[in-house]
């Protein structure tokens, strides 16, 4: 089974000791929760991007997107196990190959799902692709459950060690894997933003989003651009799947639902349709959820997250960065 092939890489890491002291116990907890929140928020942001881009370009909420991310977690585990089987254990190489393979396969998933389940319904009622998306979501969950088993999967820790801040007794830490997670997330979001803002392909995506018929009059193959958007959104979910698997180490066929709903919340929080909004919404949601569970109560963190959403929607219905009907990508 994936993940049990057993590669355990003990990086002989030297813990970085920082010498400054923080005065109270709370400040360490605060620091630790901020770090954890940033990591969680990056994952939400990466997934939220897919919801927001698809919504921006065809006005539908792709309910299967969370499950795409779930499939990515499984592919990551399989990939790591296969590489380990062939004796490839170098962290950087395993990481790069796993990222590349997962992105490729997940992009293919995203592309095919759009082709098979959404494109034929493009000119029917708004509800039809939504229902189709729920169907795809169920199919993915069941197909993974049947083929991979219902129990929770575990992946061995590949990178151990952490940067520590504080004294020997009072400290908070950023693990190397969290650092990697945040860096790779921001890098991916940066690359995506650059593509959308600066390249001809990105301009075409924005054109299709702002006025599909005009884009078509100007010679843009809008079907191709819509496919591309699904590929880009799925790729980001693939990155999230790889990072989550490496960081948290365990997952099951149901993670797509909970994380998907959270990421969707992040997209709405930031302003659905807005790319920077999705990233910002993800970070804010992750941070505040983490702070709340660290400082107040873990059991109610989901209630808190959704309350935050409700408040934003009451006072800023189009989300933090949303400018409805004008600039959505």
């Amino acid at each position, binding site marked *: 089974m994936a993940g049990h092939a057993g590669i355990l890489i003990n990086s002989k890491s030297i813990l970085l000791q920082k010498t400054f002291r923080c005065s109270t116990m709370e400040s360490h907890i605060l620091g630790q929760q901020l770090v954890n929140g940033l990591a969680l928020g990056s994952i939400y942001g990466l997934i939220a991007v897919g919801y927001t881009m698809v919504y921006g370009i065809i006005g539908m909420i792709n309910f299967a997107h969370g499950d795409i991310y779930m499939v990515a977690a499984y592919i990551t585990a399989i990939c790591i196990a296969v590489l380990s089987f062939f004796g490839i254990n170098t962290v950087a190489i395993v990481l790069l190959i796993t990222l590349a393979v997962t992105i490729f396969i997940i992009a293919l998933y995203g592309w095919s799902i759009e082709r098979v389940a959404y494109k034929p319904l493009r000119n029917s009622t708004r509800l039809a692709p939504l229902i189709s998306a729920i169907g795809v979501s169920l199919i993915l969950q069941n197909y993974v459950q049947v083929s991979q088993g219902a129990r929770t999967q575990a992946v061995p820790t590949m990178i151990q060690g952490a940067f520590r801040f504080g004294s020997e007794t009072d400290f908070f830490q950023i693990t190397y894997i969290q650092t990697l997670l945040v860096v790779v997330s921001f890098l991916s979001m940066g690359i995506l933003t650059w593509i959308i803002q600066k390249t001809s392909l990105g301009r075409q995506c924005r054109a299709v989003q702002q006025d599909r018929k005009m884009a078509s009059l100007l*010679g843009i193959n809008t079907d191709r651009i819509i496919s591309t958007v699904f590929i880009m959104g799925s790729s980001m979910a693939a990155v999230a799947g790889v990072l989550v698997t490496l960081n948290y180490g365990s997952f099951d066929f149901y993670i797509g639902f909970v994380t998907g709903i959270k990421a969707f919340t992040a997209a709405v929080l930031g302003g659905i349709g807005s790319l920077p909004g999705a990233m910002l919404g993800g970070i804010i949601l992750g941070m505040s959820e983490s702070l709340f569970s660290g400082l107040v109560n873990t059991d109610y963190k989901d209630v808190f997250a959704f309350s935050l959403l409700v408040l934003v929607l009451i006072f800023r219905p189009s989300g933090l960065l949303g400018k409805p009907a004008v600039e959505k990508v």
Partner: protein
Amino acid sequence: MSEYLLEIQDVNASYGPIQALRGVSMNVREGEIVTLIGANGAGKSTLLMTIFGDPQASSGSIHYRGQEITHIPMHEISRLGIAQVPEGRRIFPGMSVEENLRMGTMPIGDTHQETDLQTMFAMFPRLKERRSQRAGTLSGGEQQMLAIGRALMSRPRLLLLDEPSLGLAPLIVRQILSSLRTIADQGTTIFLVEQNANHALKLADRGYVMVNGEIRLSGTGEELLANPEVRNAYLGGH
């Protein structure tokens, strides 16, 4: 190659049960300015969109440079050398003026992009001043100039314009019409749809009059301007 750059033969087109075009035949020769006038709802915009295949002609045919284009997908039409400045301008509001212009080069690639951008800025200096401004914040006249500039960026052989004067002040209308004259003089063939019959017929070599989805009259600009039916219906009887 046929005698006509654009030849529309006996075209019918509908939106569901509503028939918008009824047996429309008309043509445009290379180098001409041809205008189509008609009241609101006559089917003028539908005709321009039918050339791009949406709605598609249910019968009849459309030829461009001798090639039948009736069933060619919309996004491939512009690559043949036809550009449209559609009704309502349809600039991309969230993009800058410069990005809007760059979008226009899609059909031909970006080989001439920088040169043509400067040409557009020379033709419409207002756009140059506002090149980094969001296009949605432009005035109506500026948006129209932008829509025309964007269309020209594809170096079209045939330029279709749908009511470019709609809602603009008389001074701006004159500016737009004079730039159309310049564009025509530089060798682009123009097919201009207008309700503003007076201006359009003065500019055009030939014209057609559309009523309820049918071509009612055709003739040279002068003939139509002198025609009592046209004068009563479209020129307020003056």
